């Protein structure tokens, strides 16, 4: 009897050892930081970047299983070809066509963002994903239910096991998987980047050069190179939409000096990220330039320095526009690695 117990104990040990040996570890991949860029804000320490994790995040991003009526995926509001923003809607539309209150922002170079959402209310990329899932005007689902659906699915438990070493899908592994995908959306291969890297055969036209000069003079304080954003909040003087009544950063901090301030969006790929601003009020890049040129009301109390109506000439407007177009990164917008998983 005693021998038999020992025998069983011994063989269980052997089996455990064997299964350890054959358990495949996920494949670590490197997050490459483009030359001369700052270090990313996102730390991979508690969520190492792996191929399995990235692919799982990608699958989830395109899967409507995350929404209540299984009609909407993250990609419904964040489309790759438009820099991962909504097309054509000023403010985003969720399930049953319910409207949100804000324009969906681009998902570009998120690894360098220190806060998320137009008001910076979300402090970490890993917790951002709970918002769209639970927001009544977006996916309107409870996180618990999503976890139930995923745990009951015939494919996901195995995929989570490959990526995170456990079949059991939790808030933590779900959010980490989504993050591994979104944090990997790096755009650093536009004409502007090639120019800065002094790649052979890449030249700025006179127009683009002049546009860059104007940009550095008037815009780069806020839309700072190379990310074309900065981790603060500002107002470019837009007046409050009377229906949406969005007070921006103030809604988070309740500090009167934050009233009407919004995050400074990146301008990378802005050729395709229309409509523009937190409420999508401008349809064309031209409209934005016209606004900065002649539309700003200098008497707006919350207007951030050094903004004022710049009164660009027609040539200057064209120059500025042609520079902004150099921020288009087709290799990013059409990168097959980011697209709907086949």
């Amino acid at each position, binding site marked *: 009897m005693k021998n038999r117990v020992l025998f069983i104990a011994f063989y269980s040990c052997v089996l455990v050892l064997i299964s350890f040996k054959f358990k495949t570890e996920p494949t670590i991949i490197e997050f490459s930081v483009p030359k001369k860029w700052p270090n990313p804000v996102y730390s991979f320490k508690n969520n190492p970047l792996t191929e399995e994790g990235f692919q799982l995040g990608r699958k989830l991003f395109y899967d409507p299983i995350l929404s209540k009526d299984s009609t909407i995926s993250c990609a419904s509001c964040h489309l790759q070809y438009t820099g991962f923003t909504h097309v054509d809607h000023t403010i985003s539309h969720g399930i049953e066509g319910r409207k949100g209150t804000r324009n969906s922002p681009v998902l570009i170079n998120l690894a360098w963002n220190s806060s998320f959402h137009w008001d910076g*209310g*979300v*402090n*970490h*990329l890993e917790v951002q994903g709970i918002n769209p899932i639970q927001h009544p005007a977006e996916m309107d689902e409870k*996180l618990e239910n999503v976890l139930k659906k995923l745990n009951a699915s015939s494919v996901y438990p195995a995929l989570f096991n490959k990526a995170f070493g456990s079949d059991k899908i939790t*808030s*933590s592994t779900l*959010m980490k998987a989504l993050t591994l995908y979104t944090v990997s959306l790096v755009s650093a291969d536009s004409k502007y980047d090639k120019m800065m890297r002094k790649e052979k055969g890449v030249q700025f036209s006179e127009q683009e050069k002049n546009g860059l000069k104007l940009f550095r003079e008037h815009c780069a304080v806020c839309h700072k190179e190379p990310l074309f954003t900065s981790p603060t909040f500002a107002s470019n003087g837009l007046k409050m939409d009377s229906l949406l009544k969005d007070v921006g950063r103030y809604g988070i901090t*309740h500090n009167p000096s934050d009233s009407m301030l919004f995050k400074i969006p990146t301008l990378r790929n802005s050729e395709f990220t229309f409509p523009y601003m937190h409420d999508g009020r401008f349809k064309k890049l031209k409209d934005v330039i016209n606004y900065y040129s002649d539309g700003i009301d200098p008497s707006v109390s919350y207007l951030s320095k050094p903004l004022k109506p710049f009164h660009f000439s027609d040539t200057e407007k064209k120059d500025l526009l042609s520079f902004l177009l150099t921020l288009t990164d087709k290799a990013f917008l059409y990168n097959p690695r980011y697209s709907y998983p086949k």
Partner: protein
Amino acid sequence: MDKIVYGFVLCFILNTGYGQTTSINFTFQSSISNEYIELNTIYSLSDSSKMEITTCRFYVSNFTFYSNNKLVSEQKGAFLIDLENPESLQLSFPISVVDSVRFNLGIDSSTNVAGILDGDLDPIKGMYWTWNSGYINSKVEGTFTKTNGVKIPFEYHLGGYLPPYPTLQTLTFSCEKSEKIVKLDLSEFISSLEIEKCNNVMIPGPKAAELSNFLATCFKID
């Protein structure tokens, strides 16, 4: 084979050794004055107003234990105390008797910015704000019935870690016994609020900071 036998013996010795270590045990309760109360039950207060608590949940975290004013043990981690969940009301730490204990009521700021977390800190526990990321340090919900019979439902969700309105509180108690009962006197909390003026707090800000501070003073330890 011999090795395995030794292994078993070793395990046995270790196990019994473990059983003998002393521990300090906390039991959390809500009370009216010193009287234990339950959820979803109407209690009369001294002035014949009435109170019913439907939800009472709060985080306690980072327990530190002191002897002769010296730190003897630090137990990192957060625990969600939920009156609805009896299992959550007992905490036990494997240390021997000390002079005093200090712990946080709420979640510290570094944990608030640490991304997605597991266990009691899992956002599905319902103690997390998603649109304004951060933990809800405490939730007290229920109904207050004034002496004239008017009912006032209340919901206090207290949280926020950013200055100038941080809501984290630190509690310090003497702790010479190994069995301690931590009581939250909700009647003291409720009856001192200007409940008619403010029966609902759902966001970080000055009100949340003020009420958190006040809630902390309603804890007593026996």
